[in-house]
């Protein structure tokens, strides 16, 4: 094995280096001299993100445990962009209190290692790497969710996350073990060449599906989502809701199209019904939320319900639509969470009522929020429209008209609650609106990136073309 071969793992290696540098800075910098940490993290991660985009060979490593393809690289790059935004947005929160600031090194380290886990998970060629990547992506984040020690909610979020995750990974493992029993191999390639169709394998599929669906928070495996998002620090919620969810979708796609490709009729049916209830339940809950984080949590559940529309047809176009959707979703969701985080850091206010009259005092924040919400709702000309439209197209072309119908009806319901927020910001009047918030440059930059992304991605047909051409790996 040569160095060149090793460089196929560029994403992971870069991240690893980044993590190590962060650790070194953390250890070398004095206790009172950590101001370097945030700019360093931002710069390093920007580099990592940038390098990720350089052209690279694809191939297999470690006897097939690790493999890359154009699509996988694309997925990783999408994640990187999202993580970069999260990192930039975290600055405000880290500076917010000394305690957080003190933890910034650990915070960045954990975020980055979690991304390493996701990257390995996506690149995994066998179930072992998949499993370890998954755990690496989850367990440290649970610690971060509980990081705000002064807040009871934070700890509650942490314990809910880690225990639910433990249960779900137990279920997942049980499924993997059954697969192993029926086939004898843990490699995706070997499993996919085998014709899985016995009941036991279906059983195994459902175990595995449950484990992954838990991460995507598909109904009925979604219940942890709202509580965790509400309790955890905003940036962790945004990380979980966008990056973590996106990575789980990516691996779900990979699993469905490699390992379980012979069970296509089963997983089509399962996805069909989960999609329907996920959208519906997510929407129904989102309607009556007051807390913005909780609101966004349910909204993200509802959004997750749209994803199966692209997968269900099993076409290359569908897959690219899903990736495209997720890319847009990352930007939109991070935009919304970014605003919530900026406001929460400055004032501690997280309720929708507090947003009344926001536009008069903070027009830019309101605009970014509106853009993000419209994008989530799928309103043109912002990108969300294109993402949703292509998902619907993918399903419709395969003849799932009823599913598309249910989905668009749900999209309308979701518009209702997104508009409630818009209403609060733009229409409602408040006696004591949130004062003008003078955001630091990190927050501004983070929101700006989101806003630009939300506007550009939809219009630039080339981005979709690129995704389409890259997602031939399956």
């Amino acid at each position, binding site marked *: 094995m040569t160095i060149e071969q090793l460089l196929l793992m560029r994403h992971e290696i870069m991240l690893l280096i980044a993590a190590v540098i962060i650790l070194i800075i953390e250890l070398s910098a004095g206790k009172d001299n950590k101001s370097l940490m945030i700019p360093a993290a931002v710069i390093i991660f920007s580099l990592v993100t940038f390098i990720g985009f350089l052209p690279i060979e694809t191939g297999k490593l470690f006897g097939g445990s690790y493999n890359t393809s154009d699509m996988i690289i694309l997925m990783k790059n999408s994640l990187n962009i999202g993580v970069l935004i999260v990192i930039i947005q975290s600055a405000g929160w880290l500076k917010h209190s000394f305690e957080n600031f003190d933890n910034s090194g650990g915070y960045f380290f954990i975020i980055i290692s979690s991304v390493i886990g996701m990257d390995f998970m996506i690149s995994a060629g066998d179930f072992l790497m998949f499993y370890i990547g998954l755990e690496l992506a989850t367990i440290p984040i649970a610690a971060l969710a509980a990081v705000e020690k002064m807040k009871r909610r934070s700890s509650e979020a942490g314990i809910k996350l880690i225990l639910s995750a433990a249960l779900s990974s137990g279920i997942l493992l049980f499924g993997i073990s059954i697969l192993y029993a029926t086939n004898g191999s843990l490699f995706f390639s070997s499993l996919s060449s085998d014709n899985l169709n016995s009941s036991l394998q279906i059983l195994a599929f459902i175990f595995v599906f449950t484990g992954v669906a838990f991460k995507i928070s598909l109904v009925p495996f979604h219940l942890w989502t709202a509580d965790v998002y509400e309790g955890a620090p905003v940036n962790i919620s945004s990380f979980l809701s966008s990056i973590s969810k996106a990575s789980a979708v990516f691996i779900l796609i990979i699993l469905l199209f490699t390992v379980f490709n012979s069970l296509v009729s089963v997983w089509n049916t399962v996805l069909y019904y989960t999609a329907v209830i996920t959208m519906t339940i997510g929407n129904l809950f989102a309607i009556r939320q007051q807390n913005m984080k909780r609101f966004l949590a349910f909204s993200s559940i509802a959004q997750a319900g749209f994803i199966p529309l692209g997968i269900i047809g099993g076409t290359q176009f569908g897959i690219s639509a899903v990736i495209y959707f997720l890319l847009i979703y990352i930007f939109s969701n991070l935009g919304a969470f970014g605003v919530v985080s900026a406001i929460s850091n400055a004032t501690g206010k997280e309720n929708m009522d507090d947003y009344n009259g926001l536009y008069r005092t903070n027009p830019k924040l309101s605009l970014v929020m509106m853009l993000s919400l419209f994008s989530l709702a799928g309103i043109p000309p912002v990108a969300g429209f294109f993402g949703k439209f292509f998902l619907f197209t993918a399903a*419709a072309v395969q003849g799932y008209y009823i599913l598309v119908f249910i989905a668009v009806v749900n999209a309308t319901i979701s518009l209702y609650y997104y508009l409630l927020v818009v209403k609060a910001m733009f229409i409602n009047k408040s006696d004591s609106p949130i004062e003008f918030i003078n955001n630091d440059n990190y927050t501004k930059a983070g929101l700006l990136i989101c806003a630009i992304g939300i506007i550009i991605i939809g219009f630039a047909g080339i981005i979709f073309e690129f995704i389409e051409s890259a997602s031939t790996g399956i």
Partner: protein
Amino acid sequence: MDLILLILVPVLTLAALMTAGTKAQARMIAAAGTGVQLVLSVYLVIVYLMERGSGNIEQMLFTEKYVWFNTLNIYFSTGVDGISVSLILLTAIVTFTGVLASWDVDYLYKEFFISLIVLSTGVFGFFISLDLFTMFLFYELAVIPMYLLIGIWGSGKKEYSAMKLTLMLMGASAVLLVGLLGIYSYSSPTGATALTFNIIEIANVDIPVEAQRYFFPMVFIGFGVLGALFPFHTWSPDGHSSAPTAVSMLHAGVLMKMGGYGCLRVAMYLLPEAANEMAWIFIILTSISIVYGAFGAIVQTDLKYINAYSSVSHCGLVLFAILMINEIVMNGAVLQMISHGLMTALFFALIGMIYSRTHTRDIREMTGIMKLMPFLSVCYMIAGFASLGLPGLSGFVAEMTIFVGAFQNTDIFHRSVTILAASSIVITAVYILRVVAKILLGPAGDNLPSGIKDAVWNEKVVTIILIVAIAGMGLVPLWLSDMILNSLGPITEKLALIK
């Protein structure tokens, strides 16, 4: 002419508006932008007529294709025929007058004009699109600023109305979307070519009739809700009554026309078999719309509600006409769209102007305002006459074309509903004259604020432009009607082949 200009000008206006500092600047920029747009639209009509005059018989003129999403075969393809040209002109007129009518918006003026122009961009884009995708995109783009416009600058129970309007229209667009995607997925039944959203290409394809039966109602209802199809019209009275003046103008004047246009261009044109088969269902619904809206208008006491119900009735006539499936009546449908667009814009403009003076829209609280503001009252009367179909004004041309055309259908069903629809002109007269008698005529009321002044310059410009347009269409309709008629050929041919 490059049609993309029609999108570009509003976008540039938007950009300029962002930089505007003062109210005077903002409104000047908006007026200038929409003014340029109006000039462009007039120019478009002229070059269109010249092009046709020089013997160009292409279905669509000035077509352009910009590739957008290559994989899905999505192009930003534009092109116009007589129908869209006339509706573009209508839009430009109404937008321009709408901007002038909101000259005195004080609260968040910049945002107001931005939303207004976003809305108009959507409408222009919708009318020049030849691609279902962009059409749908612009459709939604036009609907969503409505929410803010009504919610922020509206009056009365604006939040409820804004939400209701937005949700019903977006719900409709949801149904529509399924229909459009259905059309898309059947746009290449043999699989020989790639699936396409292009209207002209789809028109050359025979979509299986079983599929049409599913998608026709979806598309028709989807667009029909915007055209106030019974029983999905209830957003209209509330929405109109809560909206600020310019928004009511644009909405009733232009946005509702998108419904009719969509039904004609997509539902009827692309799904002809189902259109022929299922028209009767919707004819019944639209007949109800027509009569029901008119009767509903009789008892209302709020000026805007009256006009909103009247719009239900008149727009019902548009859809009704589209469903009667022949050249004459479809021509009438388009004429009615334009006519209704102009006169309802005039109505709402006037109602806004009157409201800003009397601070009430309740007809029971106003009498004899003819004495107080003769100019506005006379204009209101003219609008009323146009609405009840006075010859020499636009309403007559449109309605008569519709009735004559509808009567060309020989069976008893079509004829009886035509008679039913025609009876609405009497009811229209009843509610129009009721309002005129109640508020304009009679002794001057003493419960109105003192010191009421008549129209100021911008208001005069608004009303005069609209009245000139209404009268112009009413007096010399032939060029317009011919322009539309010549473009209806492909649609009616396709429908007639099936018949």
